[in-house]
Every structure is written in structure tokens, then in C-alpha cells.
């Protein structure tokens, strides 16, 4: 080990003392970090939890000394085993990175060089920092990869990043981070870009390697449930300041600060149901899909002239299910499983084969879908930044469905808009604002109000909480359930968040590779006849914090 002094169990490996950071922006200085105190001991994992914009990633960049040009550092020290990183020269820092302090970022596809084989990227670190010979490095790299659970390490080393899956790539990045036995490793949302099942495997790998090596880990995440499972200590960061820190168990069981309590309350707990009551089992089906298949890819002129064959992509294959009147049907699945494809087909945005039926009206293709159908089936999109026209005032956005379907007389328009805003708990005077003057959660409320303004029978919710912060997610989910109960509309709720869907759906459909593999009542999630993939999904999700 190259630690300059005797290993000292009493002294933290990573010690941030009173560190402040400000960004110079066009609108004036922005305080990103305010007098941060944080320390990580050897053998411990410190979870750093916060919402987007809280400054958690800024802290990681500061420790690694990758600061943007407009960053102004204030007081404070960043100590690695007692040495101040701020006092080091750029050369010393370069030598230190990867050898004494490692890092694993969110997206493995951007942190690997696409032009080098995975083996080359791993051996490079060993040759440079540990002065191994090439053959030594190769043997060591294979051992490291084997330790991360890659079954054929020698073969994996010859592959390029694009030839490996996201999970495999992240394993290689983790192997690289652990390669030189660093004193400290910073993990910045390492599993956010991966699908749930792979994410779970990577988290288990992290816990195992951390225990084996005793490395001091700083684990940055927005996911409280995850942090409660893998971190020994937790620090909660809010608007650049640490509001609460302590042992994981204590923070999750007896939080002292209001903000921490609010964050914890916002984590979806599958056991706490948001919906009350069930639609009667005799309720008639309102929307039926029978053998719906959606294909992507339309040939262009040149391809047709040259008779070039184009691989056809099937987004969803032979999907059949029925929505009962007044129910919330959840659809879960990984990204690319076809769940949004289905919603877009029902909304008349994707062409389909098979049939979609609304009550007694049956449609066989997208072109048959008419305005009467569209009025009764409304869709809410994932990203509220994109789904509201930036050049229209909220008033005009909400007025459009009312005018289009002729729902209220001209004189009653403003009263109805005020009512709609009130329904989604926004102040009336928001009607005069533009979308960019609203926060993400407020924009999503406007999008919800617009969908319900049409007085639809079916509302399709396509990942409507995914782009929002945890605390906002919970209130938007509650709002939706509340509106659904009041209006009696039927909902199709699409999400990748399994805990959330268990809270608010009456029944849950599971999509996997374009097919609907399972459909069950929310209460029967543990029944023995569940599809093996459903069980895999349910097991992969960490239980809610403190539950």
C-alpha cells in the first residue's frame, strides 16, 4: 500500500471540512455547496442522498478536482488520509486519481473509451499505476473481472464497449475502480442508467467488494430505499447544505429534520395503498386490446428504390388486455419492454395491427381512430418540459381541449380554467404564466389538468412521475389517484417503479421484450403462479427505507 502514514483506524480516509463552492453564473453567483462537513472511515460506506440540484455531484467533482471554469472555491479542506487535495499540483492529482481515489459514474457507456477494448482499458490502469508488465497486468485484470462476476473474463477483455451490455460495462468500470486497491472510491448514481434487475446485481456486487476490500466508499444517490440497504452512514444534502447525517439505521428509523422526514415519506411503500376501494369485478371492460402488435421502421424512398431490406423492429407483440371501468391498471417493465409503445398506440400515435376497442367501437388501424375516440382517451407524457408548448400561456394550453371538444360556452372558459387549476392544486393566477416560469412538478400538474379537461373516459399516464424529484413524485401520484377517484376515469399507469405501481394500481401487467407476460391483481403479487420474470422484477427492487 502506498499510504504515506501508518493506517490509522481512528482517522477518516476521506474528510471534507467546512468546504464551500460557488458557481459564477450570468445571473450572479450560485452557492452550490455551503460549508460541507463529511467524513468516511475505512471500511464504511457513506450514502449521500439528495434531490437533483442539491449539490451532491458538485461535491464529487470537487473531491476528484474536476471543477468547471466558473467554479469558485471558498473555505474548507478536502483531506484524503490527512493530505489536503486542494494543495496538490495538477500532476500530483493525475497520479492520485485511479491509484488512491477511484470513481464510478452513472453511465458506463460514456465513461469507457469506445475505441479501446475493455481489457486494454483495465490493463492500462494497472501498467500505469502499479507498474505491472503487460503479461502481469493481463493476468491481474482477468482475476479482477472474475471477481466482479463476469463469467468469461479472458473473452470479455477482447471486446469493445459496444459489444458488451450496460451491466457488463459497469462491471468493467467497477473492476477498474478497484484495480489499484484505492483508499477511497466515489460512486455517483452507478446503477441509475441500468434496468432494475441488472441494477440489483451491481448493487450486490458493490456490497461484496466493499466488504472484501474495506475501501471507504462515498455512494451518491437520489434513491433512499437503495441507500438504506447498502450504506452504513447516511448524509442528507439539500440546497448545498447537509441537513442531517448519522448511522443509516438511525436516520431511517428516527429522522430528526423535517426535510429528511419529507424525503422518507415520499418514498413509495408498496404496503401503503394510495387507492381506496376496488372497481366491482362485474364492471364492464371499457378499453380492450386484442392481439395488438406494433412495428417500427418505415422504408424511405432511397431504400425502396435500391430494394434495400430493412430490419423491422417489433415494439410490442400480440398484446391483449382489458381495462375495467374505474380501475387503475399498472404496466411495469424495463426500458425497451414496449410499455410506452402500447400507450402510444392506444393514443393513436403509433400504427398497430390487431384491434383496440373502446366500449363497443372497434378499431383495426391507426387511421380509423377519430376525434370522438381521441377525446375519450387522453395521454399524459413523461416529460412536462416537452409536453407543453413553450409559446402558449397556461390559460391557452388548458383552454384548447375545452374549445376543441366544445365543452364549455365561451363565457364560462375562464371560470372552468380556474377550476381546473384548482383541481390540480395550482393557484388561479398561473393561467397567465408561460411553462418556463413553472417548476417541473407544476408543469406536470398542468399536463394532468389538460388531460382531465377533456373529461375523458380513459387516461393514459406514460411514466408521468419519472422525470420528477422524489418528493414531487409522491404528490403527483397522490393527485392522480385523487382525480381518478373523483372523475371515475379509467387509468393506464405506465412506470418502471415497481413500488409505486403496487401502491396505486388495482391490477398490474408486466411487459418483457414486447410481450405482456403477466397480469395480476396488486394484492396477488406474491402468489405462487406468478411468472418467473415478475418474481425476478419484484425481488430486484429494494424494500422501502425503514419499512
Amino acid at each position, binding site marked *: 500500500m502506498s499510504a504515506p502514514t501508518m493506517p490509522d483506524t481512528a482517522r477518516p480516509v476521506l474528510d471534507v471540512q467546512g468546504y464551500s463552492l460557488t458557481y459564477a453564473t450570468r445571473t450572479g453567483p450560485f452557492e452550490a455547496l455551503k460549508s460541507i462537513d463529511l467524513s468516511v472511515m475505512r471500511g464504511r460506506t457513506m450514502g449521500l442522498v439528495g434531490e437533483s440540484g442539491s449539490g451532491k455531484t458538485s461535491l464529487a467533482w470537487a473531491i476528484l478536482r474536476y471543477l468547471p471554469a466558473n467554479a469558485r472555491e471558498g473555505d474548507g479542506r478536502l483531506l484524503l488520509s490527512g493530505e489536503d487535495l486542494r494543495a496538490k499540483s495538477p500532476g500530483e492529482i493525475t497520479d492520485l486519481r485511479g491509484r488512491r481515489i477511484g470513481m464510478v459514474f452513472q453511465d458506463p457507456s460514456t465513461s469507457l473509451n469506445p475505441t479501446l477494448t475493455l481489457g486494454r482499458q483495465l490493463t492500462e490502469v494497472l501498467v500505469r499505476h502499479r507498474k505491472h508488465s503487460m503479461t502481469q497486468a493481463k493476468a491481474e485484470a482477468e482475476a479482477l473481472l472474475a471477481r466482479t462476476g463476469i463469467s468469461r473474463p479472458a473473452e470479455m477483455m477482447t471486446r469493445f464497449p459496444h459489444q458488451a451490455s450496460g451491466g457488463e460495462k459497469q462491471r468493467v468500470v467497477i473492476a477498474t475502480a478497484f484495480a489499484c486497491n484505492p483508499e477511497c472510491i466515489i460512486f455517483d448514481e452507478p446503477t441509475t442508467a441500468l434496468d432494475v434487475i441488472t441494477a440489483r446485481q451491481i448493487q450486490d456486487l458493490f456490497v461484496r467488494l466493499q466488504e472484501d476490500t474495506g475501501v471507504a466508499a462515498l455512494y451518491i444517490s437520489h434513491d433512499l430505499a437503495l441507500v438504506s440497504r447498502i450504506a452504513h452512514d447516511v448524509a442528507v444534502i439539500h440546497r448545498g447544505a447537509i441537513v442531517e447525517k448519522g448511522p443509516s439505521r438511525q436516520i431511517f428509523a428516527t429522522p430528526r429534520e423535517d426535510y429528511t422526514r419529507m424525503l422518507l415519506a415520499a418514498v413509495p411503500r408498496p404496503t401503503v395503498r394510495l387507492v381506496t376501494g376496488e372497481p366491482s369485478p362485474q364492471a364492464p371492460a371499457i378499453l380492450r386490446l386484442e392481439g395488438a402488435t406494433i412495428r417500427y421502421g418505415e422504408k424511405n424512398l432511397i431504400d425502396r428504390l435500391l430494394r434495400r431490406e430493412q430490419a423491422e423492429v417489433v415494439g410490442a407483440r400480440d398484446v391483449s388486455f382489458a381495462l375495467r371501468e374505474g380501475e387503475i391498471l399498472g404496466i411495469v417493465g424495463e426500458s425497451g419492454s414496449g410499455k410506452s409503445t402500447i400507450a402510444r398506440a392506444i393514443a393513436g400515435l403509433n400504427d398497430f395491427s390487431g384491434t383496440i376497442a373502446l366500449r363497443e367501437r372497434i378499431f383495426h388501424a391507426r387511421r380509423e381512430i377519430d376525434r370522438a375516440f381521441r377525446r375519450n382517451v387522453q395521454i399524459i407524457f413523461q416529460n412536462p418540459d416537452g*409536453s407543453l408548448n413553450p*409559446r402558449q400561456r397556461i390559460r391557452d394550453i388548458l383552454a384548447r381541449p375545452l374549445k*376543441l371538444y366544445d365543452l364549455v360556452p365561451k363565457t364560462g372558459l375562464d371560470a372552468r380554467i380556474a377550476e381546473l387549476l384548482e383541481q390540480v392544486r395550482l393557484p388561479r393566477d398561473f393561467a397567465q404564466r408561460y411553462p418556463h416560469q413553472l417548476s417541473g412538478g407544476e408543469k406536470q400538474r398542468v399536463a394532468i389538468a389538460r388531460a382531465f379537461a377533456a373529461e375523458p373516459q380513459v387516461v393514459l399516464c406514460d411514466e408521468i412521475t419519472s422525470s420528477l424529484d422524489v418528493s414531487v413524485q409522491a404528490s403527483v401520484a397522490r393527485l392522480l389517484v385523487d382525480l381518478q377517484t373523483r372523475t371515475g376515469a379509467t387509468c393506464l399507469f405506465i412506470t418502471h417503479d415497481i413500488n409505486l405501481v403496487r401502491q396505486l394500481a388495482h391490477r398490474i401487467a408486466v411487459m418483457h421484450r414486447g410481450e405482456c407476460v403477466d397480469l395480476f391483481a396488486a394484492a396477488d403479487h406474491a402468489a405462487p403462479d406468478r411468472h418467473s420474470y415478475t418474481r425476478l422484477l419484484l425481488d430486484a427492487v429494494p424494500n422501502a427505507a425503514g419499512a
Partner: protein
Amino acid sequence: MLDIWRHPTGLIGSCLLALVLGAAVFGAVLAPYDPQLFQPLARLQGPSAGHWLGTDQFGRDILSRILHGARATIAFGVGATLLGVVAGAVIGVTAGVVGTWVDSLIMRTIDGLLAVPDLLFTLLIVTVLGGGTGHAMLAVAVAFTPGMARISRSAVLSIRTREFVQAATARGESRIYIMAAEVLPNSVGPLIVEATIRVSFAVLLGATLGFLGLGAQPPSTEWGLMIAEARQFMFRNPWCVAAPGIAIAMTAMGFNLFGDALRDVFDPRGRR
């Protein structure tokens, strides 16, 4: 629009534009002499109290000629660009909205046309049609059309895939409403910016054609023509070439900087 004053290059651009536009509007009134007045005794003089920018080979006052020429030069630049923008936008928006093989056909043709440099394109058209201000203007407009078509098509396409347009489609809005209310208002920003910058190229192209004798004809006070006429006397009085040259550069730069600043200001998300 006030934001443009706070934008450093926007301020310079606006000042230059104000100067040039002022000359175009009030030039004829402000000019101290008749631009066509021959003064055989005062040929090729340097700047003096009587002639601020000196006189040319016929003894005509250069300042008066530049002030008179401003209107022709700017009218040419703005007119040619406007024609090109309208033609290009119609073609581009059609391609973007209709899609399918119509889009492929239009765009491949435009790719072919874009391979010909603007100046070569204009020269080709003027050669076929014959010279003169009207033909030169048409030529520049035609040369601008493919580029503008490409830009308007991409503006339409990038907006068309946005979720608010899909939301409108899902709501059952007509194609015409979606185009007029959702797509166009969000794509005019880049079009206006591009058009403003292109005015500067049009001014330069117009001056080039004038210089080559294919645009405005003597005794017009068009700036490019002024340079061409005075070229032989450049060494006896540099001002007769430098003054219209500087005027062209100021106009082109004014439109260019103003367009750049517009690009930054136009984004409503930058507005608070």
C-alpha cells in the same frame, strides 16, 4: 427585445444597423450634394471640409453617393433574402409536413443544389437571365432557397417530434391547426435569425454582382458598382474605393452581429 441592448455584440450590431438604416431612410435628404453632379475641377480629391470623403474621377461627392446608395443596397439585401426565405420556407415546410417520398424527392434535389456555391449559382442565373438589379435580386433569392428550405424543414422536424405536438395529435387536432399553432410559432425563431444573417450575405453578393457589372448599372450609386468604377483610380484617391468598401462591411457586419444576438435572445427560456 430590450435584451438585445444588454447583449454585447447585439449592441454593436444594433448601432451599425441604426446607422445604415438611417442612411437608407434619410440619406437623400442629408446628402450635401447631388450624387450625379459632375465637378470637373474637383476630381479625385482627398477628404476636405467641402467633401468629407473626397470626390471621385468625375468630381462627384463620395459621401453623397454613399448616402444615396444605402437605400439601393439595403433594399437589394432585404428584398433578395425575403424572396429566398419565403420560397425556401414554403418548400421546406411542405417537405417536413408531408414527409414520405415527397420529402425524399425535395430534399435530395436540394442536396444537389446545395453543392453549388452561392456565388457560382447567382452568376449562372444572371448569365442566363441577363444583368440588372431585378435579375440579380432574383438570382440571389434563388441561390438562397435551397439553404432556407433545408433549415425550415429541420426546424419543423425538430418541433414535430416534440411531445406537445404529439399531445396535439393525440387530442385529435387538425394538421393545419398543429402547423399554425404548435409548430410554426416554435420554428420562426431560427428562421428569423438565419434570415437576418443572410441579409449580410445578400448585401455582399449584390455588391459583388455590381462590381462585376452584372447587377446595378451606371450611373447607379450602388456600392459594389462604385468600387468597380473607381478601381482604376484607387492609387490616386484611395477613398473612392475604401469608402464604399467600408460601407458594405458595416452593413454586412451590422446584420450579422444583430442576427447572432437575436439567436441568443429569441429563446423564450432565456427570458425571465
